[in-house]
């Protein structure tokens, strides 16, 4: 499977009469995008705003962050099962708008998550302070049920991102990267001396505001399955979860998965990147057993030497993580696990809710309980009405001088467990 990823560098975004990309500037027609969003019957109104790196802007509560892409050649379309049909993606040619993101924000339930600061100390913790952000805030029709509201906002975000990606279809990319992953037989023959390594990605899959979708299928209903890693670059995995935003994977992170990127960089040099296994993190304990059994079985079938496992979230997924690690190691396959920590504000408490001696190679994305002070910023996109109610915030959160004292938990992507963020430990 071979995918050419063409990068269209976006240097600026501004509102205009007509949506287009010209000389690296994305011009956005609010009216055109509004029509797309208003297709959803649950949405009463939508507003658009732009937040640029370095501006004194805070975006909250963030639901998802999405990178616009378009499928230029090859089967299928971007966000299969959500926006496009369900053809298998990951081959041919795809263009991505680099340097920007669509951010969906707005209240769905009364306790809310996700802060992106475009400047100041908070900006250091979120990867999305570096992107030009087109923010859309949706309000629901009165009485809309929370599940329907979540679904309407989620789908609207993908449609807007796909429509913006479409603007790049006839453009010439500024740079192109080619990703190629061999089939099993071919890869055995091609790299006989290299260790066979796969990526096991655990997906949050528990219910409202805690879900992830694979080709449109609710991940809690899948058995672990095998993907070509290029499939995720076409949006085969999308996010429907944002609670405790620091260690959740917005769609942007699925499209630009750091583990996939780094394994491709070593593919054919120090290792043979065999494929990507996706599995879930369900509430029901028998599901955890079943999924970790199947994951270990797939690892054995692939004749692997090593596996990198990334977690999404904290608490009960620690149990899935340790089950995966133990069972894969029991097959004689070395594992490295990527997690984050809830080690208390002083960092002295037990970091994970589960542990095992087999988990002897661990990478951390940082301590989500760490307290940070975020100074008052000039402008808020979304609303601060919920800021005392987001995970990691407390009664004294919104202080007299307008600054916020919060745990890293509230910052979108701060302790990401695919290595997308900047925190770790040695």
């Amino acid at each position: 499977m071979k995918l050419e990823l063409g990068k269209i560098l976006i240097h600026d975004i501004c509102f205009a009469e007509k949506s287009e990309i010209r000389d690296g500037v994305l011009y956005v027609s609010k009216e055109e995008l509004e029509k797309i969003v208003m297709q959803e019957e649950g949405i009463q109104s939508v507003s658009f705003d732009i937040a640029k790196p370095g501006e004194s802007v805070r975006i909250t509560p963030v639901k998802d962050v999405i990178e616009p892409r378009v499928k230029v050649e090859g089967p299928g379309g971007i966000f299969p099962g959500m926006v496009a049909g369900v053809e298998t993606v990951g081959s041919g040619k795809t263009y991505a708008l680099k340097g920007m993101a669509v951010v969906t924000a707005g209240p769905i339930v009364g306790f809310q998550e996700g802060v992106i600061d475009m400047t100041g100390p908070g900006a250091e913790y979120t990867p999305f302070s570096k992107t030009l952000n087109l923010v859309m805030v949706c309000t629901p029709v009165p009485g809309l049920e929370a599940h329907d509201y979540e679904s309407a906002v989620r789908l609207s975000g993908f449609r807007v991102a796909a429509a913006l990606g479409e603007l790049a279809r006839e453009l010439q990319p500024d740079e192109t990267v080619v990703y190629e992953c061999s089939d099993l037989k071919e890869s055995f023959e091609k790299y006989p001396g290299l260790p066979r390594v796969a990526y096991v990605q655990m997906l949050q899959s528990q219910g409202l505001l805690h879900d992830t979708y694979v080709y449109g299928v609710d991940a809690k209903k899948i058995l672990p399955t095998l993907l070509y890693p290029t499939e995720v670059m076409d949006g085969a995995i999308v996010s429907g979860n944002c609670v405790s935003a620091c260690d959740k994977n917005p769609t942007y992170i699925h499209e630009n998965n750091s583990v996939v990127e780094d394994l491709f960089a070593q593919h054919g040099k120090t290792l043979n990147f065999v494929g990507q296994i996706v599995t879930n993190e369900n509430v029901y304990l028998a599901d955890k057993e079943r999924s970790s059994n199947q994951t270990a079985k797939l690892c054995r079938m692939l004749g692997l030497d090593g596996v990198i496992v990334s977690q999404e979230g904290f608490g009960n997924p620690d149990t899935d993580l340790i089950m995966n690690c133990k069972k894969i190691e029991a097959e004689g396959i070395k594992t490295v696990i990527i997690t984050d920590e809830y080690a208390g504000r002083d960092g002295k408490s037990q970091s994970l809710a589960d542990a095992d001696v087999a988990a002897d190679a661990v990478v951390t994305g940082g301590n989500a309980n760490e307290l940070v002070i975020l100074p008052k910023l000039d402008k808020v996109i979304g609303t601060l009405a919920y800021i005392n109610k987001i995970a990691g915030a407390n009664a004294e959160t919104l202080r007299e001088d307008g600054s916020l004292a919060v745990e890293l938990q509230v910052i979108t992507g701060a302790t990401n467990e695919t290595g997308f963020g900047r925190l770790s430990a040695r």
Partner: protein
Amino acid sequence: MKQKNVIVTNNPLVSEKQPGNLPVEYLETDYMGVLKAARDKIHSGATLLTHPLYGSVKPGETPYRSLLIREGGNKVDLQSLRLIEAAMETCRKFEERTGLFGAGSVRDFQVVDLSLLMSALGDFHESRQTLSYK
């Protein structure tokens, strides 16, 4: 003693909706109180069917916890015991701030808690052969 599945909860919405038509043991207690009640049942032979730390709304934020357990076993299930003890240990790490939330949020916490339980019950009903989880 016959084995039976029971929802132990302090969420009044779960008690009202009775998901899956399962018997509900409603407790007037807090998050930790539900964990303790489940631990006591595990001491008497019950098995956990759902993970006690399900969901990303942390202890101290949501006041609600709903656990599906199987009662009537005749020995202590060590896996269940280990999970519930670890959950109680984790719970102690989080500051209590459930009192901060207004009435609207309380209802939302109930809805999310119910949704997560229903997700688990969906699996439960679709795959009854896994009821005897060990």
